């Protein structure tokens, strides 16, 4: 599917499949085109080109009402002059269901969502969470082929959001619903999704099992966007320990060097990286092993003194944030350790996790040992994954 608004490409050759009964989440920053994509699928907007298939059927020419898709919106879309029960039964009424059938369905849905007590109330008498429940109920009542959900929980406050999130997951299992869900909240995506699609600037960067998106990001954007706290992304080069990597030879120690950053790397990994970079860059001006590495804060060990084997990176704690389960330290690396490469101005700082009880304080000298085995490497200009 493609769609352009004026000069800006809102959807850029987006293509993916949601399997039956699957909970798929599109994740991306606001303005990345995920809502437009959803509206195109629903038929509320018309893509410039591309097709939508529901099951085997191509529904491009169908108006929204005939696609048999239900949608839950970000803003409340309950009909204000109808009671909760009337709202839930509206899609059935439009299809000419009998009063008896509508009543049965409303009761069934109300039970599923535990809103039996609200059926006679008007939408304005409900709290935000209750309204969103009713919206979901209205979507479920008509038993559509698929559900589209556009940030349905984003207007709720945090505890309620977590509660409704868990409930949504339970309901999806019980009903066996096929859901395409849109959010900018990566925690929500990871909690809900069987499959996650990460979008940025109208492009679907990666569409994969939730676990894979987290563990094998396809691009530097995905690595940065998925995961909380955010991964550290730094500009580095892979070099042989004794100098620039002119030609990788066996059994030579390799090092990853950045501004203030230096860490040894297994020779096989290094050779793979260099090989790949060479092909990708095709002997361009930067064909010297210049890449980006992404290291998650949880993959960096932090200590108050250097270990016996050496090889740690020295730095200084500049920010100390106490979060719910751990502390997040921002460590500024000493400038004289690495090799000034000239292409990353300023000092590098890394975010690392430490236990709640640890005694690091601001200004303390610390030694970091990143686990490069769990790091991800990306080509510097395109951001594409190398390994």
């Amino acid at each position, binding site marked *: 599917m493609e769609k352009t608004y004026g000069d800006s490409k809102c959807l850029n050759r987006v293509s993916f499949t949601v399997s039956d009964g699957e909970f798929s989440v599109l994740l991306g920053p606001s303005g990345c085109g995920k809502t437009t994509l959803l509206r195109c699928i*629903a*038929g*509320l907007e018309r893509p410039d080109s591309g097709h939508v298939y529901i099951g085997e059927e191509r529904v491009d020419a169908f*108006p*929204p*009402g*005939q*696609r048999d*898709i*239900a*949608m839950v*919106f*970000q*803003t*409340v*879309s*309950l*009909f*204000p*002059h109808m009671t909760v029960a009337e709202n839930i039964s*509206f*899609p059935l009424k*439009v*299809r000419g269901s009998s009063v008896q059938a509508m009543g049965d369905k409303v009761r069934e849905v109300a039970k599923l969502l535990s809103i039996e007590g609200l059926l006679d109330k008007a939408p304005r008498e409900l709290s935000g969470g209750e309204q969103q429940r009713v919206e979901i109920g*209205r979507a479920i009542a*008509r038993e559509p082929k698929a559900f589209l959900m556009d940030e349905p929980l984003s207007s709720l406050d945090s505890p309620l959001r977590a509660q409704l999130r868990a409930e949504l997951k339970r309901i999806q299992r019980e009903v066996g619903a096929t859901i395409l869900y849109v959010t900018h909240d990566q925690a929500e995506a990871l909690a809900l999704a069987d499959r996650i699609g990460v979008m940025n600037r109208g492009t679907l960067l990666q569409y994969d099992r939730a676990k894979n998106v987290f563990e094998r990001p396809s691009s530097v954007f995905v690595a940065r966007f998925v995961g909380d706290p955010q991964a550290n992304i730094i500009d580095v080069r892979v070099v042989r320990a004794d100098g620039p990597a002119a030609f990788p030879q066996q059994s030579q120690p390799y090092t990853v060097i950045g501004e203030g950053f230096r860490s040894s790397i297994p020779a096989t990994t290094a050779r793979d990286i260099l090989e790949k970079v060479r092909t990708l860059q095709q002997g361009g001006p930067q064909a010297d092993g210049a890449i980006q590495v992404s290291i998650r804060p949880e993959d960096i060990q932090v200590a108050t003194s250097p270990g016996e084997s050496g090889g740690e990176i020295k730095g200084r704690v500049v920010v100390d944030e106490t979060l719910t389960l751990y502390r997040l330290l921002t460590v500024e690396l000493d400038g004289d350790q690495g090799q000034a490469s000239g292409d990353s101005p300023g000092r590098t700082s890394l975010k690392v996790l430490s236990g709640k009880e640890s005694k690091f304080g601001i200004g303390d000298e610390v030694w970091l040992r990143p686990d490069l085995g769990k790091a991800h490497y990306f080509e510097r200009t395109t951001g594409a994954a190398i390994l």
Partner: protein
Amino acid sequence: MVERYWYLLLIPILVVLSVVEFYPLLYGVYLSLTGPNGNATLANYSQMVSDGDFWNSVVVSLTISVLSTIFAFCLGLALTFLILQATKWRGLLEAVFLAPLAMAPIAVGIVWAPSTVWDDFQTFTHFIIRLPYFSELSVLFYVPVMSLSEAWEWAPLVMLVCMSIINLTSKSIYDAARLNGASPWQVFRDITIPSIVRSPVMQFVIVLQFINAMWAFEIPLAWSRWLGFSTSVGSPTDTLSLFLYKLLFIPSFGYPIQLVSAIAVALIVLTLVGTTVMVRLLSKMGN
């Protein structure tokens, strides 16, 4: 300062109001309560309620008001529905529909009258579609037509208010209705109309239309001329305003100014009572 002497700030507007509003009103009430010699009396009112032409005008005014209010609302809704269906040229369509709003009521009275519209209309219906003639002089024809032409002038305002109410409602409500399989007509009937009727702004416009129609003058005047009632009172075109006009400016009727004042006061009271009833009714409907 301002908190304590707020009433001082009201003085300028009160002065203006008392000159242009309160004085004429109170003087009218005063006149209606005095006899020919300046003595206090209720005789004007008792004479008024025993006057058949007065009651005729009350019935005419109320009929035209109620009919034209209903017509204006329905017509405004119809225009709104048409505009909502237009995907192209919506601006142009709106401009065309708004035109009656800019017309002088007397012109509306002339445009809708038999010789300009209905004679040609009958030519078409009778000779082309072969429908029987109907009498343009029948009360059952011209009272609804008068109401309709009153409504025709106000429908664009109803349409404007409808459009602004629709633009203020969350778009996702309409999206949700469409996605649930509602046809454009079902969306309009089940979602749009209820939200329009519930809107306080729309209720205000309806009441305003009622008041306006209670004072209808120009269109009834034009019809009164077409039908040959210019020099008589008690005809089905005589709204209270037109009745008052005829009493004042046709000396042969010989109504004293005190009696005319009593009728003017009655018109105001009737309008206030009608308005109150409507406000009650509408707010009950809204809930």
